[in-house]
C-alpha cells in the first residue's frame, strides 16, 4: 500500500526531502506519484500526505532536490521544494497538548469512578483505600498533564509577571496538596477529582485553540518560495556552477534559462526575454526586457535564456522589501491581542488577591487554617476563567468550521472579530473581481484544423496567453497536430512548420487595449480575443455587502483601460495603476477617516495591503503570499463567500457577547458563594465545568450560521 520499494543496502545514508504538490486532488494522483517515483533509481520510497498536499521522498544522497522536483513535474504535477519543515516545532506543541489531554481524560474518568463510590457511601477502610488509589492516579496525571500550565506560569513568574496560568497552577497545586494531606490523615474529603477535571477542561480549550493556530500557520515561508533556491553562476573563466540563493553576491553573473524564476535582482547584460512580473505588479501581460533592463527576484523568465548581473540579493531584493512591508503592517494589527493580554494581566492578580483575602478573612473569623485554605482553593477554582477563556475560541472554532464547509478558510480566530467590524471593502481587480485567467472568447472563429494547430503551438510555450488558449482548447477535446521545428521568438510568439506550411501563434499586428493573440496558418490569419472574465455573481456579492453597510471600491495595479472595463460593469469607483505602496496608502486614508477596511486581493503586490487592512480575504487562486497575508481564503469561483463570511462573523460576535455575559454572570453568582464558604472545591470544579459546557453548547449553535 505504501509504495515502499525494497531497500537494498545502505539504509543509513538515505535523505528525506519534502515537496509541496498543491495539485494532489484524488486517489489517482496519489497512485500516480507514488508508483511513478517508485521505479526511479536512487529513490527508496515516497509517501504522499493528502491532507497537507505534500510528498516525502526518501532517497540516496546522490539525487538532489532539483532532480527530484523535475521527476515529480515529469509526472504532471507542479512541485515546490520545502525547506526543513519549519512547522514541525510549532505543530509539536499541539501534539503535546493532545497527549496531556488524553492523560488527563484517563485520570479524570478513573478518579471519578472512585469518587462516585465515595459519595454514594463508601466509608472507613474502603474510603481511605479509594482516596489512596485516587492519589496514586492523580499525582502522576497532574504532574504530566499540568506541565503546559506549570511551565507557562513559571515562565511568567520568572519575568516578574503573572498570567492566567498562575492562578490555575496555584489552585491545582493547593487542591492536590490539601487532598494528599486529607488522604494521609484519613479525612473525609479529597479533591483529586476537582483538580484533574479542571485540568481536563482547560486542556480541551487549549487543544481547540492550538488546532486553530496550526491551521493558520499552513503556508508559512510562502514568500521565500517565490524566489528560486539558487542560480547557475557564470565564472570569469567561463565555467558555470550552481550557487544557493544565500551565497549569491552582487556582481556575479547568473544564467537564467527559460521557465526559471530569478533568485536575485539584477541587470540583464545579454539576451532578451519576456518576464512574468504578475507577482510583483499584478499586471497580467508579460513584460519584454532586454539588455540594460532591471529584472526582479521572483519574476519568471518566460521565453529565452538571459544572463543577468546581480545588483541585489537576499534581504535587499524588492521581494524582501514587500515582505518587510507586510511584516510591519501586520504588527500594527496585533492591538487586539495586546488588549486580551492586558485584561488577563489584571484579572489574574485580582483572582490571587481575592483568594488571599478570603483566606485571611476566614482565619481572622476563626474558621481554622484548614477550613480557610479550603475556601480559598474553592475561590481559585471557581474564578478560573475557563468559561471566559472558552467563550471566544469555542465560538470561533465552530464558526470557522461552518465557514470551511462553505469553502472559506478563516486562518485566525481574531479575524472573525475584525471581519464583523469591517465597514468598507477594497477590491483588487485581477484575480479577485475577475477570475485571473484570461479565456479566449472567440474560439468559434477557428476551424477544426486551426484549433489543432493552435493547440500544438500553445502547448510548447509557457506564456500565460498560450496557457489560456491551451486549456480552453483541451477542454473542447481537441487533439494537437504534430509540428516540426517549433521555436519561440521572444516578444513575438511561437512559430513552427506543419507539413511544410509555416504556422505561427503570437502577437497580433494590431493589438488593442486588451489581450489578444494571432494565429497564422500559411496565409490565413485569425485574431483570438482573450478576456479575463468577471467572477460569476460578483455583482450580487457586492450588492449583498452594500446591504450590510459595506460600500466597495476597486484599487488595482493594472492599466486604466482594463480597470475601467470592470469598474463600469460592476458600477464601482476605481483607482488604477496603484503600486503596493499606493494600496497601503489608500487603506491608511480610509482608516484615518474612521473606516475599518476589508481588503480583498490576491497577488504578491496586494500582500502589504492585505496585511495593513483591518481584515483581509484572498481567493484560493491567489499567490502564496496573498494567501498567507490574508486572514481568510475562499476557494470557490463565486465572490459570494466574501459576503457570507461577513455575515457569519457578525453572528459569531453576537454569540461571543452572549458567552461573555454567561461566563461573567456565572462568576458574579458563584464567587460570593465561594467567598462565604458555601462551596467545596468539588462543587466549585463541577460548577466551573458546567459553565464551560454551557458556553461551548451556545457556541455550537453557530454550526448552522453559514447558510
Amino acid at each position: 500500500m505504501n509504495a515502499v520499494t525494497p531497500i537494498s543496502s545502505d539504509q543509513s545514508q538515505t535523505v528525506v526531502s519534502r515537496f509541496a504538490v498543491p495539485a494532489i486532488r484524488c486517489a489517482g494522483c496519489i497512485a500516480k506519484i507514488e508508483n511513478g517515483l517508485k521505479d526511479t533509481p536512487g529513490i527508496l520510497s515516497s509517501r504522499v500526505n493528502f491532507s497537507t498536499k505534500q510528498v516525502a521522498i526518501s532517497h540516496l544522497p546522490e539525487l538532489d532536490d532539483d532532480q527530484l522536483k523535475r521527476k515529480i513535474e515529469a509526472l504532471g504535477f507542479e512541485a515546490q521544494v520545502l525547506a526543513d519543515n519549519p512547522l514541525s516545532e510549532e505543530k509539536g506543541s499541539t501534539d503535546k497538548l493532545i497527549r496531556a489531554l488524553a492523560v488527563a481524560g484517563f485520570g479524570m474518568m478513573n478518579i471519578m469512578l472512585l469518587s462516585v463510590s465515595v459519595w454514594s457511601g463508601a466509608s472507613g477502610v474502603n474510603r481511605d483505600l479509594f482516596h489512596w488509589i485516587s492519589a496514586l492516579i492523580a499525582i502522576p496525571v497532574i504532574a504530566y498533564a499540568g506541565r503546559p500550565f506549570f511551565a507557562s506560569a513559571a515562565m511568567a513568574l520568572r519575568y516578574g509577571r503573572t498570567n492566567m496560568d498562575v492562578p490555575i497552577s496555584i489552585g491545582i497545586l493547593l487542591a492536590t496538596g490539601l487532598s494528599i494531606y486529607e488522604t494521609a490523615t484519613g479525612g473525609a474529603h479529597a479533591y483529586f477529582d476537582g483538580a484533574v477535571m479542571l485540568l481536563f477542561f482547560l486542556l480541551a480549550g487549549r487543544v481547540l485553540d492550538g488546532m486553530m493556530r496550526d491551521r493558520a500557520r499552513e503556508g508559512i515561508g510562502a514568500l521565500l518560495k517565490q524566489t528560486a533556491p539558487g542560480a547557475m553562476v557564470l565564472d570569469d573563466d567561463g565555467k558555470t556552477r550552481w550557487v544557493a540563493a544565500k551565497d549569491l553576491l552582487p556582481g556575479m553573473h547568473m544564467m537564467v534559462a527559460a521557465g526559471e524564476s530569478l533568485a536575485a535582482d539584477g541587470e540583464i547584460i545579454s539576451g532578451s526575454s519576456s518576464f512574468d512580473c504578475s507577482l510583483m505588479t499584478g499586471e497580467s501581460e508579460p513584460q519584454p526586457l532586454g539588455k540594460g533592463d532591471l529584472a526582479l527576484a521572483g519574476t519568471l523568465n518566460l521565453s529565452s535564456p538571459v544572463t543577468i548581473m546581480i545588483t541585489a540579493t537576499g534581504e535587499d531584493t524588492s521581494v524582501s522589501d514587500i515582505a518587510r512591508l507586510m511584516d510591519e503592517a501586520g504588527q500594527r494589527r496585533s492591538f487586539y491581542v495586546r488588549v486580551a493580554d492586558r485584561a488577563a494581566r489584571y484579572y489574574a492578580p485580582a483572582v490571587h488577591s481575592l483568594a488571599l483575602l478570603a483566606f485571611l478573612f476566614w482565619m481572622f473569623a476563626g474558621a481554622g487554617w484548614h477550613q480557610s485554605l479550603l475556601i480559598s482553593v474553592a475561590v481559585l477554582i471557581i474564578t478560573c476563567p475557563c468559561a471566559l477563556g472558552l467563550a471566544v475560541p469555542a465560538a470561533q472554532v465552530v464558526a470557522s468550521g461552518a465557514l470551511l464547509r462553505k469553502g472559506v478558510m478563516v486562518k485566525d480566530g481574531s479575524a472573525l472579530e475584525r471581519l464583523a467590524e469591517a465597514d468598507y471593502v477594497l477590491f483588487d481587480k485581477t484575480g479577485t473581481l475577475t477570475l485571473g485567467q484570461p479565456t479566449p472568447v472567440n474560439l468559434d472563429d477557428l476551424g477544426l484544423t486551426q484549433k489543432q494547430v493552435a493547440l500544438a503551438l500553445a502547448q510548447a510555450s509557457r506564456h500565460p496567453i498560450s496557457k489560456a488558449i491551451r486549456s480552453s482548447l483541451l477542454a473542447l477535446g481537441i487533439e494537437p497536430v504534430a509540428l516540426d521545428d517549433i521555436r519561440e521568438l521572444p516578444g513575438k510568439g511561437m512559430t513552427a512548420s506543419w507539413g511544410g506550411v509555416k504556422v505561427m501563434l503570437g502577437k497580433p499586428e494590431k493589438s488593442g487595449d486588451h489581450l489578444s493573440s494571432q494565429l497564422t496558418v500559411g496565409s490565413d490569419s485569425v485574431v483570438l480575443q482573450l478576456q479575463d472574465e468577471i467572477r460569476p455573481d460578483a455583482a450580487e456579492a457586492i450588492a449583498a455587502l452594500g446591504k450590510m453597510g459595506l460600500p466597495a471600491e476597486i484599487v488595482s495595479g493594472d492599466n486604466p483601460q482594463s480597470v475601467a472595463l470592470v469598474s463600469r460593469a460592476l458600477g464601482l469607483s476605481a483607482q488604477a495603476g496603484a503600486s503596493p505602496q499606493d494600496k497601503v496608502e489608500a487603506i491608511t486614508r480610509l482608516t484615518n477617516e474612521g473606516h475599518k477596511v476589508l481588503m480583498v486581493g490576491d497577488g504578491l503586490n496586494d500582500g502589504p495591503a492585505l496585511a495593513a487592512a483591518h481584515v483581509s480575504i484572498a481567493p484560493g487562486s491567489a499567490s502564496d503570499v496573498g494567501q498567507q497575508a490574508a486572514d481568510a481564503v475562499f476557494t470557490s469561483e463565486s465572490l459570494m463567500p466574501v459576503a457570507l463570511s461577513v455575515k457569519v462573523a457578525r453572528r459569531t460576535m453576537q454569540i461571543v457577547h452572549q458567552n461573555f455575559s454567561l461566563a461573567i454572570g456565572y462568576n458574579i453568582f458563584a464567587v460570593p458563594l465561594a467567598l462565604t464558604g458555601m462551596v467545596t472545591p468539588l462543587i466549585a470544579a463541577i460548577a466551573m465545568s458546567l459553565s464551560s459546557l454551557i458556553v461551548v453548547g451556545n457556541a455550537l449553535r453557530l454550526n448552522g450560521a453559514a447558510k
Partner: protein
Amino acid sequence: MNGLAILIPVALLMGLGGLVFFFWAMRNGQFEDLDGAAQRVLLDDEDDEDQS
C-alpha cells in the same frame, strides 16, 4: 471486597492500555493524513503485490 481487588486493577489496566495505544498511534503518525487514508482505499494495489 474481593471483587474490588480484581475489578479496580482491571479497570485501570484497560484504561492504561487505551492510553498507551493512543500514544503509539500518535507517534506512529496515524493521524498525519486523515483525508489521505480515505482516498487510499480507492487505489489499485496490483503494483504493490510483490511487497510483503
